[in-house]
């Protein structure tokens, strides 16, 4: 899959309708959004506002009804998917960080991160080299041979961030990554995400309702009734 110049992610007029006729529900209505490489933006909104639907559309898990999405400079959706293999799209071009780390319990830390490059047909040695590089950057390289069950919650979350970065995706989608953490650890995770975004020129969208981390965003998208409103954030430094 040819990768165009990384320009982050742009969404224009994206909508998603569930059902048909009288029972149809518009989960997303004409959503516009843009995240530049190296930028971390927040996506906030009350429950049922459409955050998760938007995340699923961005993650190529569900198909939007209308709109256009550009990822890393390439149009991936324009009234329909422009890429056949959505699994490969997710593997190579989108990183995921979840509320819980969801690491593969039977793989050690190094191979949890190396799995994605391996799935993308990279040689094992190169994939593990990439894994170690990311683990070093995230300060968990010393736990490379440990199983996920042997790590603390914070360490697990850092490994999941490393996994999301493994295939150098232009965008990372983080679904409430700080929800189970206390303030200190939540801010630490945000610090890491900001560092990684800057270091690897990755656009990061963080879905959250965590009041502790909202002040850290420079830019926010507030989603209400399926529509986004761009807001300026406070951008408190977490470095």
């Amino acid at each position: 899959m040819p990768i165009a110049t990384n320009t982050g992610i742009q969404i224009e007029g994206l909508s998603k309708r569930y059902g048909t006729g009288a029972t149809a529900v518009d989960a997303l209505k004409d959503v516009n959004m843009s995240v530049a490489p190296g930028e971390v933006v927040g996506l906030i909104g009350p429950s049922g506002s459409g955050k998760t639907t938007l995340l699923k559309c961005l993650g190529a898990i569900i198909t939007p009804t209308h709109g256009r999405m550009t990822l890393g400079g390439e149009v991936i959706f324009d009234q329909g998917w422009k890429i056949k293999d959505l699994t490969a799209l997710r593997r190579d071009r989108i990183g995921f960080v979840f509320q819980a780390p969801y690491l593969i319990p039977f793989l050690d830390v190094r191979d949890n991160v190396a799995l994605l490059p391996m799935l993308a047909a990279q040689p094992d040695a190169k994939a593990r080299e990439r894994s170690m590089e990311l683990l070093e950057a995230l300060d968990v390289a010393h736990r490379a041979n440990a199983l996920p069950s042997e790590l603390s919650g914070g360490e697990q979350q850092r490994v999941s961030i490393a996994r999301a970065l493994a295939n150098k995706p232009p965008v990372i989608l983080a679904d409430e990554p700080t929800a189970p953490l206390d303030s200190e650890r939540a801010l630490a995770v945000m610090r890491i995400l900001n560092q990684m975004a800057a270091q690897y020129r990755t656009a990061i969208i963080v879905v959250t309702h965590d009041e502790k981390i909202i002040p850290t965003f420079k830019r926010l998208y507030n989603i209400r009734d399926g529509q986004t409103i761009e807001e300026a954030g406070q951008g408190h430094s977490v470095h």
Partner: protein
Amino acid sequence: MISLAGRDILHSWGRFLLTGMGLGLLIGVTLTFAGVYRGMVDDAKVLLNNSGADLWVVQQDTQGPYAESSSLRDDVYRSLLGLPGVAQAANVTYLTMQVRGPSGDVRAMVVGFEPGQPGEPAFLVAGRRITRGHYEAVADVRTGFVPGERIRIRRHEYTVVGLTRRTVSSGGDPMVFIPLKDAQEAQFLKDNDAIVGERERIAANPAFNRPGVPGLLEAVTASQTTSHNVNAVLVRMADGHPAAVLAETIGRWKHLQAYTRAEMEELLIAKLIATAAKQIGMFLVILAVVSAAIVAFIIYTMTLGKIREIAVLKLIGTHGRTIAGMILQQALGLGVIGFIIGKLSASLWAPLFPKYVLLETGDAVLGFFLVMAVCALASTLAIRAAFKVDPAAAIG
């Protein structure tokens, strides 16, 4: 590329091993059942081999001496010896009965034979051959008798002088070989009370006790207390003479029934043990179905326990075929563990069975491929479940 299945198995090897052991015991039972059938067939073949005959001559219109009872006069062999192509012909008797030994009764097939003739045990593993005309016996080691022991067959006691091995009836009972005359007496002669009663009955019959015919009553009485019957005549062919041709000649001119080796094998395997074989076949089918159901259930349950991981794997870009491969490999891995344990178990417990259990390599190889096929088939249910997992389940 990492073997996801291999890593998962290594990670939870204890659970895999325990599951494999359960499955293995089931496979072991299945292999043993196949071994029981093979043992029955082998017993039948061994019975024919041990007789050393090319042709079995029995009573007309019977399928004796193993599948049906057969009785013919003990001078028939003389007329057979005169036929072209006959090298040896010898009388034999077969009688399955309880033989009383020093440590209790043993169910055995008592064989009456003539030394140096077909029907004699081919080899001994201990002791010597029978050298006296009466009251000596050679026993199969599975009877538990040892040389020098005294055993009782009907009214007489015999000394065990030798032991042989793998001489069994088609039913798997060990054999005890005794001289033909003793065996005829054991099989056909009545007990003393019955003989006395019979004498009185004959004496009271005016047809046998005529005043003007001296010696008639004694002659009739004597004929009732001697036996000149045997169950079969075993014929060994001279080189270059086909047994089938002689069998046809005997059937046509001697008013007897003759079976070749192939026909006798057909009688024993296709008819005598046919019902037992079908019974075992049914058990094998049921066990195979139960094994498949258990493997399917285990793999399915294991897959359901990994739904979240599968959703994450799918979300982060793992193709369905990779996940299907992981489940299939785990199912096959379980099958391999189960087969190894099953084969070991069957090999360990087979000698403990009272009847011969023959575990053939061919059956084991076939069993292995069947287990693999069953595991692959059983994994489809789990693979289907994995394909249905929505990657969005990882997001919530």
